[in-house]
């Protein structure tokens, strides 16, 4: 109740005295007639009169007011030839579905020729936006109140500022309160008022910066200086936020690299096998996700979760097939293995092109993974990247556990360090090879599932990552999972740091050249295996 009272008060202040007559009429006649009168008042030539009619609607307390104003703003409030007012529901095409503006009853489709739009100009448009925002400030829905407060930033003029100030104090929601205070402060700062400048200090919103920029040119030297100081402080803040954003993007890219490389690190580290088809195993993981979503339409989230084990299994099985079918015959010939697996990668790519499609497929991002986490006006972190980062860390931790705590891990480490010795101690090296290869391939599948949330899924998906993943493995030091993690994340960050001033392509070139040079300096990578085993 209090809210409606405030609204009435607010409208009164907004309008001054101009509309008292209509206000009276609205209270003394039945609803629909009053409403019709309000709308008819809009249907005049003079924009000035239209402005007054808008104010009247605002003040009317009519529940339909917001719809009318919104429709008017969008150009969807129209008059039929026979003098009725309708809301156009969809103004694409030739015939438009419409509804009665008063009763909201659908009236079927009408030809655009039978309708007459109620025109507005820019001044009215601004008035309408503010008016809608003000109406929304009293919406029972807190989200709507917040959105409207956001919308008012930079839209406040003298009168509105006056009227908003008491509302600020009344606002229940903390967010709405700060936003409205900011909106008013922006107006004040633009007017060169000290209070506004002070209130805006530390605000990261772009409109606040514009306002402070204007205040910095103020005639009053005190205000100008204060504004300049505030601006400098904000710039500093923004720089930090930009840095954090770069770091986030870098870590995100890095997590993708880690996911792509870590399976490779296992197969390369343990078996000394270069699997050029590793990228295609990732691609298969990504397609598994797509397939799952096709099988479970309407449930992208469930499909994605099921894709994690499914992607792992598909890639692992293909990996085992590759190991048994080709690699086992090329023992001790790493260069030939490289060529043969490259051939497999070509076949897998072409297979997907032929069987599914050469075109990219889109994998749906489930509701709970889309959107972003807003830290402040200058920094928001996209959720899907955050999930992938978390996923990469979980996969890494799981692999660490497998390597450190399980029998397989022990055997794998034994075979890595000394194959002949491990075999003589009764470890079945062939079985270890198969298991390792399956594990490494399965992890590639997981990487593909994660990648499907960040990029389009297409036959070339794997190709784009293979060289990068090799660079990560070599940079980190072969056979060292920690090395892969550090190398992947740092290469991701380096790439993102370079990008703003070098451009994406040049940044990539610089990173590649850096690694090529780094390998010359430290042929065994960041974290080389030490001791006698590494000597041979």
């Amino acid at each position, binding site marked *: 109740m209090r809210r409606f009272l405030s609204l009435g008060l607010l409208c009164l202040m907004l309008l001054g005295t101009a509309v008292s007559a209509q206000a009276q009429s609205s209270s003394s006649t039945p609803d629909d007639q009053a409403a019709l009168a309000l709308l008819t008042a809009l249907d005049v030539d003079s924009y000035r009169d239209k402005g007054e009619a808008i104010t009247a609607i605002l003040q009317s307390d009519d529940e339909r007011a917001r719809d009318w104003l919104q429709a008017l703003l969008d150009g969807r409030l129209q008059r039929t030839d026979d003098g009725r007012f309708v809301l156009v529901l969809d103004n694409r095409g030739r015939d438009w579905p419409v509804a009665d503006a008063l009763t909201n009853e659908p009236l079927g489709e009408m030809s655009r020729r039978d309708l007459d739009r109620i025109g507005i100009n820019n001044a009215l448009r601004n008035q309408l936006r503010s008016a809608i925002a003000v109406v929304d400030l009293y919406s029972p829905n807190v989200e709507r109140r917040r959105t409207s407060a956001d919308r008012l930033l930079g839209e406040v003029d003298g009168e509105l500022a006056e009227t908003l100030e008491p509302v600020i104090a009344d606002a229940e929601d903390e967010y709405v309160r700060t936003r409205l205070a900011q909106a008013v402060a922006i107006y004040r700062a633009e007017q060169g008022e000290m209070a506004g400048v002070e209130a805006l200090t530390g605000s990261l919103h772009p409109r606040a910066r514009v306002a402070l920029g204007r205040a910095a040119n103020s005639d009053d030297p005190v205000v100008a200086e204060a504004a300049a100081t505030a601006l400098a402080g904000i710039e500093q803040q923004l720089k930090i936020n930009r840095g954090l954003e770069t770091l986030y993007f870098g870590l995100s890219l890095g997590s993708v690299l880690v996911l792509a490389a870590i399976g490779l690190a296992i197969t390369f580290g343990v078996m*000394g096998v*270069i699997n050029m088809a590793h990228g295609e195993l990732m691609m298969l993981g990504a397609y598994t996700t797509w397939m799952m979503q096709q099988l479970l339409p309407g449930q992208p989230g469930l499909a994605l979760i099921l894709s994690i084990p499914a992607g792992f299994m598909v890639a692992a099985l293909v990996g085992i097939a590759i190991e048994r079918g*080709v690699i086992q*015959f*090329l023992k001790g*010939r*790493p*260069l*030939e*293995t*490289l*060529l*043969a697996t*490259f*051939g*497999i*990668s*070509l*076949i897998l*790519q*072409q*297979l997907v*092109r*032929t069987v599914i499609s050469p075109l990219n497929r889109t994998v749906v991002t489930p509701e709970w993974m889309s959107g972003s986490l807003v830290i402040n006006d200058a920094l928001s972190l996209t959720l899907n990247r955050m999930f992938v980062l978390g996923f990469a860390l979980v996969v890494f931790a799981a692999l660490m556990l497998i390597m450190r705590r399980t029998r397989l891990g022990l055997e794998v480490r034994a075979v890595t360090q000394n194959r002949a010795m491990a075999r003589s101690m009764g470890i079945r090296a062939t079985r270890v090879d198969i298991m390792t290869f399956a594990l490494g391939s399965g992890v590639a599948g997981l990487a593909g599932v994660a990648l499907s949330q960040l990029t389009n899924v297409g036959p070339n998906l794997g190709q784009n990552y293979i*060289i990068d993943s*090799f*660079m990560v493995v*070599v940079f980190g030091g072969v056979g060292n999972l920690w090395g892969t993690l550090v190398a992947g994340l740092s290469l991701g960050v380096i790439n993102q740091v370079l990008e703003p001033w070098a451009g994406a*392509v*040049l940044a*990539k*070139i610089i990173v*590649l*050249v850096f*690694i*090529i*040079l780094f*390998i*010359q*300096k430290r*042929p065994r990578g960041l974290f080389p295996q030490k001791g006698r085993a590494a000597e041979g």
Partner: protein
Amino acid sequence: MMTQATSSQFWLTRPFGERATQTFLGVLFAALLLVTVLHLAVPQGHPLHVNAYTVNLFGKYLSYALLAVAVDLVWGYLGILSLGHGAFFAIGGYAMGMYLMRQIGDRGTYGHPVLPDFMVFLNWDSLPWYWHGFDMAWFAFAMVLLAPGLLALVFGFLAFRSRVTGVYLSIITQALTFALMLAFFRNEMGFGGNNGLTDFRELLGFNLRSDATRLGLFIATGVALALGYILCRAIVTSKLGRVCVATRDAEARTRFIGYRVERFQLFVFVVSAMLAGLAGALYVPQVGIINPSEFSPLFSIEIVLWVALGGRATLYGAVIGAILVNYAKTIFTGIMPDAWLFALGALFVLVTVLLPKGVAGLLGHLKRRKEDDHPPKEAAA
């Protein structure tokens, strides 16, 4: 594979004494002569007539064959699997392309007297410094060898000094050509970006679109292949060639008997890069375009397949492999383009698993079988 001990001959003429080289050169020159005769002397429309398009195609195969010989020199004899030889090929090609661009002069679409069309299009007002000199044929032809050679020298120096070999070297050579591809795709590099260099008109005053020039280029490529083959053969039959084989099989041991392995690797790597550059320079005027796709890692690794299919460490095997694969590619992409990548992929697997010595190994095997079937008379007696 058996090697002959160093003979007392001069190293460059040594290959001429070999049966295999004589056969190779004989077959090559016979083929050149045959194609020339069938092209010139047999009238058009006759089933045996070889048209200009086919001559051009054969010329392309021969330049690929020279490239394959260069790769076999480092992979077959030195054990260095370079997955970046396409880069040297492309750089040689670009050097030639730059010369051909400058030859266009003011006949380009925009009619600028000096600047190539793409530079006018990008609103550049002067030539970048590295484009100077390419209007002179001798300079451009020198660059065809020197530019890839210099890149190989710097890259190889760094890599071999740090004893980066085996799969590590393969990976970083691949990264090298990938980085170069990305770089050449950029317009700012001044090599025509995506589109590369094209619309060439003449080479040393000969119109590139005339049939006579195409035949000339075909023959020139054949001669270059012969010379490149002889040079490589001379290297591998010298004592240095055996140091290479020794390095390939037991690098540490070679070092212990006093050879500076990294210098030998560098020397052969640079020679090979220069030959690849020469192959690229002969390729470009025949196909009429050079663009960054020649730097793609796929192309470089395909070259290795030619060598593997033909048979490593034979040199003539590389030639056979290059021609076979590219002929198959021409046929396949003509009748069923989708199947080509399947065929190529399968070839990679089959050659490495089932035919490790390639076609050359198969030929050798058949030859031995034949000798076994017909034992010499005195043995039977």
